[in-house]
């Protein structure tokens, strides 16, 4: 093993029934570097991480780590930890009701005894050293997501860590928080830790990484130095075909047709009263920072939270939308922000997940026949290129992007007149993102109305002809036409005059 290398994986193979998840993948991590692991959904990133952390046993290949003579076998996450491999997952796995110090040390004190004083002192030092803005006695749940994420990292690196794996650490952080996290990552890198960084955000890769390893369909595409691989090339490597330039997506600029949905003074238990309307064939969007009330507003439109007031018109007729089913019967569909919590029914098959919404609209006494359901499922698996072994596969075993496509399929199957998409592209790969954006515009072409929410303003500007800007749970502006520039949107979000 070379001196500067901390981890090598050679010829790693992993098979699942009917799927070659990893085939002959090599991966090398050097000391004091940040190494991005890139690939589309189902490329094998997660599987590789899970093999490395002992979640899955590997079916072939060898792993070597600095300081151990022989190839090592990692049987469990505890094993991985003992070799100095620590992981921080996308979902924070700490206990929000314990203090920061407790979260950093609990479960690791010898023989279950806890020296509280010592623990607080050490965690205080560590927090300070890593520049994490939290106090040891603070309850973790009261910290921002970013700080929680950083505490998780602090916990991970405190145990003589050689390899730190960060799996999508930034997906729920805003720009400022991301920058804080990067500072921490760079600091750790200086101290000699090798960091494996898994993310979907291309800009972030370029902001912080040294090397990039790209996987595609379970195979290694190559390892590259960041400065030698321009962004467009990277995307090409990831999706394996010449990237259709995103700019080929052309949104409809013409003014929307007649109004499909209109609300006046609509409010729910979670949102303040607001007015809103959307025309047939229109794509509009809600934008604003996290917590600005954009998700709550669309949830109110769908009746997802108890509606407390306002009048709603669909197709010019006054209707009552008090619960999701009411909205669904009016031809409204809603793809929720948190697909794990609100979207997928993990243990049910792809087929059952796809037909769910249509089935509910049809009612309990009119089940969709098995044959028909198969037909629907196959149609949409093909149309949206959902990667799944079969329509019988539990949806929970699919990758994030494919789960998102399943939920999209669920709503497309209901042939909605109006589709609300809250963060449909979060945490999914570039290829699928493009597909979803194109799909949105295609639907609009067919005269459907779409409301689109995304954290990426770029994406919103590409697809929406009208943007509703929210700040502090109020609508603070509406931009369209010429006004739709990144700078203008930013200024409106930030406030402080035109």
């Amino acid at each position, binding site marked *: 093993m070379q001196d500067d290398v901390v981890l090598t994986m050679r010829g790693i193979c992993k098979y699942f029934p009917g799927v070659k998840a990893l085939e002959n993948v090599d991966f090398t991590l050097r000391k004091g570097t940040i190494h991005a692991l890139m690939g589309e959904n189902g490329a094998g990133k997660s599987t590789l991480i899970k093999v490395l952390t002992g979640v899955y046993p590997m079916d072939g290949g060898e792993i070597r780590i600095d300081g151990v003579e022989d190839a090592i076998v990692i049987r469990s996450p505890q094993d991985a930890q003992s070799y100095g491999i620590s992981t921080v997952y996308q979902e924070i796995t700490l206990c929000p009701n314990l203090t920061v110090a407790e979260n950093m040390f609990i479960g690791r004190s010898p023989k279950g005894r806890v020296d509280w004083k010592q623990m607080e002192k050490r965690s205080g030092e560590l927090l300070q050293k890593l520049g994490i803005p939290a106090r040891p006695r603070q309850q973790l749940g009261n910290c921002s997501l970013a700080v929680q994420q950083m505490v998780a990292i602090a916990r991970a690196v405190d145990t003589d860590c050689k390899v730190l794996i960060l799996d999508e650490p930034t997906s729920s952080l805003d720009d400022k928080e991301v920058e804080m996290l990067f500072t921490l990552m760079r600091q750790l890198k200086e101290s000699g830790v090798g960091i494996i960084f898994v993310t979907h955000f291309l800009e972030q890769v370029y902001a912080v990484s040294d090397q990039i390893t790209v996987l595609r369909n379970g195979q290694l595409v190559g390892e590259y130095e960041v400065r030698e691989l321009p962004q467009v090339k990277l995307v090409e490597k990831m999706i394996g075909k010449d990237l259709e330039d995103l700019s080929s997506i052309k949104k409809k600029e013409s003014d929307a047709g007649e109004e499909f949905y209109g609300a006046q003074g609509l409010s729910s238990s979670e949102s303040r009263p607001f007015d809103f309307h959307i025309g047939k064939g229109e794509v509009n969007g809600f934008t604003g920072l996290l917590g600005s009330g954009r998700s709550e507003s669309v949830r109110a439109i*769908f009746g*997802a939270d108890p509606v407390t007031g306002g009048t709603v018109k669909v197709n010019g007729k006054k209707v009552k939308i008090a*619960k*999701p*089913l009411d909205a*669904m019967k009016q031809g409204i569909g*809603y793809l*929720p922000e948190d697909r794990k*919590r*609100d*979207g*997928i*029914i*993990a*243990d*049910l098959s792809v087929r*059952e997940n796809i037909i*769910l*919404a249509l*089935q*509910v*609209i049809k*009612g*309990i*006494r*009119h*089940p969709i026949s098995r044959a028909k359901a198969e037909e629907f499922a196959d149609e949409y698996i093909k149309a949206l290129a959902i990667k799944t072994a079969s329509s*019988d596969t539990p949806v929970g075993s699919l990758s994030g992007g494919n789960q998102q496509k399943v939920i999209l399929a*669920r709503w497309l199957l209901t042939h909605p007149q109006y589709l609300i998409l809250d963060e449909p592209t979060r945490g999914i790969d570039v290829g699928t993102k493009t597909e979803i954006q194109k799909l949105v515009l295609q639907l609009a072409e067919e005269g459907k109305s779409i409301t689109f929410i995304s954290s990426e303003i770029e994406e919103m500007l590409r697809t929406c002809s009208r943007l509703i800007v929210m700040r502090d749970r109020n609508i603070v502006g509406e931009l369209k036409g010429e006004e739709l520039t990144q700078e203008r949107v930013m200024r409106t979000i930030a406030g402080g005059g035109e």
Partner: protein
Amino acid sequence: MKKAKASKFFAKNSQLLIPLIAILLLVIFNLLRDPSFFSIGISANNRGDPVLQGNLVSILNGASELVILSMGMTLVTAAAGGQDISVGALAAIAGSVFVKVLKGGEVTGPMVLVAFLACCAVAMVFGAFNGSLVSFFRIQPMIATLILFTCGRSIAYWINGGATPTLESPIINAIGSFIPGIPIPTPILIVIVMGILFGLAFRFTTLSLYVQTVGINQGAARLNGVNTVGIKLLSFVILGVCCAVAGMIGVSRLGLINHETLLINIEMDAILAVAIGGNNLGGGKFKLLGSVLGAYAIQMLTITLYAMKVPSTDVKAYKAVVIIILVAMGSPVVKNNMSRFWKKFKRNHPAGEKEVA
């Protein structure tokens, strides 16, 4: 080809393996012990009608109430992610109502129907009570049903004012024992009818999909327009009907209601049947057939112990040992190890690989 089909069936229904293996082991054990254990004969009963006799008939017949209750229990478990421990008490209430109505006058066909409908209605009301505590007030199912578990048999007592009233009628006998001319015990026929009713409900409504959806992810179910409160409530009401049917069979077997002993402790067996059937007691996906097989496995175990003349004081210990083995076999840890072992075995014996290709 046939083999491939069978292996495909088991790949899709792997959870049925545990109860099937349990039944298979008990069958083999019994055949080794007494080759004639499963022999079936026809003889005349004391009314002169030909009836089927044999241990197999006893097992199928004796398990009837348990099978019916475990079907309902499966539904509640799947939807509410918890168990109803009041089924025995509710069956006792339903049985008491059944007797009470029939005690009012002569036992005729229409009266029996009225009595059955009455006990169904009462059981559904109590089921709805349990269900609303669980769905509306969001109380843990075991805690919510603890109420009826505690007071149910007292309520049953009040209905008939105590004692153990008896019913003597050929109609009652036909329900609990044999219909003249039909050699199959009626409870077995009732189980078949209940099975068909469940099958029809799953075929012609979306009950199964909704129940699983609610059980797996309640939030998502709501956002997809599923009435989560209603589905949970419905599952308890259906279990109520199951209790009513089980109570009626229990009462009709002997033409006697003993509110203290009717289907006593059956809630534990019903929960066990659901567990042995490979269903997740935390809710979500379910297989009714698994619970049914689980129920028959439990009954077969009981009858086996009787046939072996295990001393009264030891029966429960024997039962516990077998159940520990069954439940352990179904645990994810053992399952994973077994499948790993199986893979290794396959790799070392490449002859078995043909099928994969």
